[in-house]
């Protein structure tokens, strides 16, 4: 088990190194240099040269990368080419906003998907099961931002129950925070919930066919009890994989939802930076999102160890 843990941790570190190099290399190979891009085509050569010196852009690429990466490890993200502000604190601020959105959406998705998916599997021959399956199939086809627009149309424009957009920190006005969070979290969560429902359904269906469920019923457990006691933990193994991938999808999906609901999260920071061609901010935020995805996958693998004893006790299946 310790070996597995070490190997997995090592793999995470290697992945981080490779992906950070990839992000850096990608941003470095762009046609034209970042200083020229940031200052605009009308800037004087002297001004561009000055900026290159100031930001160390005239150094060899490898030095620049090592410098960026070592600062990154200490969460020193450098200063923006455009606003000249420290990037770190700003990113941290925005990240908190996005995190609220993602975590609440994920909770909604899980709360919707686990019971519905299980129901659809257990009752897969009944009308109810077919309806749940069909609805989730349609839900998968709806992009979150479309769901967002639809929800705004109904609950903000027509019914006027909730604000159409905006963001208030929970510390400033908790009630307003909740009101403004409901629609964006619901649009992200419902769509992910539809995807997750399908995975939960197929995982539970697979488990229901397993011999140990039959053994459990031969022991005298009712079908529901057999599923709860013996099935759910086993069904959780494939579902957890999908949860990890979904968390990554949600992080990126939040970028779009933040645009729909005018939420000042990491996504809007990224999009603003793309618009103003503030490449160092783009590079930092992209790296942060990649880091988040990799760490989530790492945590999912650790969760496996907790769920599946076959992985814990050395022996290979």
């Amino acid at each position, binding site marked *: 088990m310790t070996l597995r843990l070490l190997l997995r941790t090592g793999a995470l570190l290697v992945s981080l190194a490779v992906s950070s190099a990839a*992000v850096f290399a990608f*941003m470095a190979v762009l046609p034209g240099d970042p200083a020229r891009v940031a200052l605009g085509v009308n800037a004087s050569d002297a001004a561009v040269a000055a900026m290159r010196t100031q930001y160390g852009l005239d150094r060899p690429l490898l030095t620049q990368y090592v410098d960026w990466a070592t600062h990154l490890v200490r969460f020193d993200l450098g200063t923006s080419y455009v606003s000249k502000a420290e990037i770190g604190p700003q990113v941290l601020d925005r990240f908190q906003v996005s995190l609220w959105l993602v975590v609440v959406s994920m909770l909604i998705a899980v709360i919707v998907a686990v019971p519905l998916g299980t129901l659809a599997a257990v009752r897969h021959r009944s009308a109810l099961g077919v309806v749940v399956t069909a609805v989730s199939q349609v839900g998968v086809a709806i992009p979150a931002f479309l769901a967002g627009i639809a929800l705004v149309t109904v609950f903000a424009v027509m019914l006027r129950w909730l604000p159409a957009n905006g963001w208030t920190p929970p510390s400033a006005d908790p009630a307003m925070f909740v009101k403004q969070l409901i629609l964006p979290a619901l649009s992200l969560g419902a769509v992910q919930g539809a995807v997750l429902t399908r995975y939960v359904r197929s995982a539970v269906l697979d488990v229901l066919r397993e011999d140990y469920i039959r053994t459990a019923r031969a022991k005298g457990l009712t079908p529901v009890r057999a599923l709860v006691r013996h099935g759910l933990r086993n069904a959780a193994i494939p579902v957890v994989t999908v949860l990890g991938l979904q968390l990554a999808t949600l992080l990126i999906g939040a970028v*779009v939802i933040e645009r729909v609901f005018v939420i000042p999260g990491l996504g809007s920071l990224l999009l603003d930076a793309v618009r103003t061609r503030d490449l160092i901010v783009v590079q930092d935020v992209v790296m942060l999102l990649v880091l988040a995805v990799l760490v989530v996958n790492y945590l999912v693998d650790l969760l496996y160890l907790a769920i599946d004893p076959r992985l814990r006790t050395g022996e290979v299946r």
Partner: protein
Amino acid sequence: MRARLFAHPGFVVGAVIVGAVVLMAAVSYVWTPYDPTFVDASSRLLSPSWSHPFGTDKFGRDVFSQILMGSRTTLFVGFVAVGVAAAVGVPLGIVSAMAPRYVDEPLMRGSDLLLAFPALLLAIMFSAVYGASTLTAMVAIGIASIPSFARVIRSGALQVMRQEYVLAARVAGRGPVAVGVRHVLPNVASLVIVQASVSFAIAVLAEAALSYLGLGTPPPTPSWGRMLQESQELLFVAPRLSVFPGAAIALAVLGFNLLGDGLRDVLDPRLEDQR
């Protein structure tokens, strides 16, 4: 096989929807009711009527014509993105399956690492560097779809490699390229088709999201995603404007998903519902 496909309700519905999208794109080459880019200040924000079945937008452009033209963008992006993903992912998967472990392992690790860059993030990076365009969107979505192609094809190819006729071919001294092209590729073809259909749906979703963010197809080329974005600021005035592009996106994605699921059910006997 064909009879089973047409007996699969999901496949039939999916095929009909996808067929409709293709038909819309084909029709748009010969006929649209109006020039979809024609700005007419005198007919702004008209409600649906006989002359404008879906109404007009804030510039007086005919929404129905735009939807027709938008289907081209959707299909074009999907085809190129899936093409990029398949062109790289299929050989990668087959090579990985046939190669010794020390080649297979780094290839698959590398492809896994690509999973940390979802389509949208990759497309945002691309547009930050090269500017927003249909091409950057397509390539980014395509690259992001490579790992899933490689994975699926690799596991399929591994199964084929264990088949006796492949072993026989190898024992008979067939070179790895001949085995890969003549034996493995034809036998994973159905997996390629299924994965292509699924990836197509993902590409359509990603294109819509990118265009919505203003990072995809630039104006004036009609795109369903950008139509949604333009409609959003008028949500309080004319909410109907978001209905048509929204429904078009959702239906197209649903169509490709159903098509993919149907193909998988019929082509892949392993996943067949037992009893």
